[in-house]
């Protein structure tokens, strides 16, 4: 495990030194502000429609749940794509992965180290920005009108803290497996963006139908995680040193 940490720490160090990473933070902050402004208008509409404080709170809570759930998933997947650029894409393009494969590290250690280097910052930042967003929306739009915070319900919080990170970890592993064995990195990146969109849109109808306060969404998310895990396990079996080397540029 110590060697896995070594790989992860080095990748994180590299990522944190890139302008692109901080650029991604800027994009996220922009998205958050735009989202908060839109949500603020919805909250105002709810406050105008409902009469009692309890009704207003119970109407706003699912809205907060939907926002927090969607935001966490979107942000974590977005950060995943950014951190992956240095954890693996550059290693593949510059062929430093070949040198890494010539060390006594096992392929499993390398893949796990890389997956964690992509997963951990993505989840930490995703959670920070999600809860920051929730607190910000409360601070600017809910607290002045209701006098208290309205937080997402138990089911979305469980989904955000456990299920979404699980999906993200599997997604990170899938992304790394794909990039290790396929030559054209651009095609893979395009395919991965497609997958992110598919996950987002795939989860949107059930979220809207059942509502994020429902435990159904937790189980549906678990199903998505299981499906991704199956694909990842299949791909992981194809990852060999030979495939990695032969699919590297040069």
């Amino acid at each position, binding site marked *: 495990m110590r060697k896995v940490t*070594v790989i992860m720490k*080095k990748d994180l160090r590299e990522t944190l030194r890139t302008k692109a990473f901080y650029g991604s933070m800027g994009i996220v902050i922009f998205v958050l502000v735009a989202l908060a402004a839109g949500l603020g208008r919805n909250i105002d509409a709810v406050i105008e429609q409902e009469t009692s404080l309890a009704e207003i709170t119970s109407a706003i809570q699912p809205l907060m749940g939907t926002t927090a759930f969607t935001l966490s998933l979107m942000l974590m997947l977005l950060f995943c794509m950014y951190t992956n650029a240095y954890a693996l894409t550059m290693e593949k393009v*510059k*062929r430093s992965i*070949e*040198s890494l*494969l*010539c060390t*006594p590290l096992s392929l499993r250690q390398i893949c796990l180290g890389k997956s964690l280097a992509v997963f951990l910052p993505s989840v930490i930042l995703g959670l920070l920005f999600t809860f920051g967003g929730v607190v910000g929306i409360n601070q600017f739009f809910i607290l002045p009108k209701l006098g208290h915070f309205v937080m997402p319900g138990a089911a979305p919080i469980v989904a955000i803290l456990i299920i979404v990170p699980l999906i993200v970890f599997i997604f990170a592993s899938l992304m790394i497996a794909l990039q290790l064995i396929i030559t054209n990195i651009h095609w893979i990146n395009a395919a991965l963006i497609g997958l992110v969109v598919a996950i987002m849109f795939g989860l949107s109808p059930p979220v809207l139908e059942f509502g994020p306060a429902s435990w159904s969404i937790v189980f549906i998310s678990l199903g998505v995680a299981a499906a991704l895990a199956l694909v990842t396990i299949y791909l992981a079996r194809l990852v060999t040193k030979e495939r990695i080397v032969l699919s590297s540029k040069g």
Partner: protein
Amino acid sequence: MKQDDNLAEAIKLEGVTKILGNRQILKDIDLAVKIGDIFGYLGPNGAGKTTTIRVILGLLSPNSGKAYILGKDAQDDAAREKVGFVLEADGLYDNLTAYENLDYYCQIYGVPQSQAKERIKEMLQLADLWDRESDKVSTYSKGMRQKLALARAMVHEPNLLILDEPTAAVDPTGQMEVRQIILNLAQRGKTILLSSHNLDEVQRICNRIALIDKGEIELYGELEALRREMGRREVVIETGITATEQAQKLDGLLAELEALPYVTSCRREAQQLRLQLDGHGDVSEIVAMLSHKGIGVEEITKGEVSLEEIYAKVTKGGE
């Protein structure tokens, strides 16, 4: 060529065949690098040098045959614990400093933190990069990168170094510096496998060579022995001719000398007679012919065939 079985082998390939796509890149290769060897691995582009190195480093698995490094199966991750390498792509991280690049590999190889600092400093000093240790590698020239890659290869004190064209795309000054580092490493008793296009480099550094062409080992053995044994050799005879008449006599003799079965070429340069003989040439017969014509012989110098000539002969011979 036969191996001395008493010597331990740092690298051993037994009947290694590698097929990529429809192409057989390596054809039943047998090769051994003995402990302490500075082994030159030569061959034209596309001959199979890099594929061989990839098999040795466990990056590619052979379709048939076995590869061993330091007595272990090359596919075993643990076999590479005491192996250092410089590959075609240097594998350095541009966003990290020279120190951090070496520190990363120290951690991968499990060099204790207490020793790592000293090792990194020693290696960066050996590569003459200590004053640039905190600069990002992206600011380094190609030559500096190659020197750093060599320092990285040595940072965990490996017993075996595998260098795949370490001076390729490096300017002449950089090449000299890299070569000097390799020589320093050789003096430290490391076993080195050096794949190179640079015949002069191999001739200066290596004690044994193998030459691969079209996936087959065409030549293999001690460099000096090969140079002695391989084909023709040059003989320079310093004659005692002084007058034009004697020079004419010597010129007249050239045709007779060239007619000898073991003389491949013959020419006069002022007082010198330069002959290329094949492996079985008899210089005494030539001296006798000169004496018979009244031409005195002052000195006979025997030259050896250069690696370049061996290379040209083997690679062209196969075509």
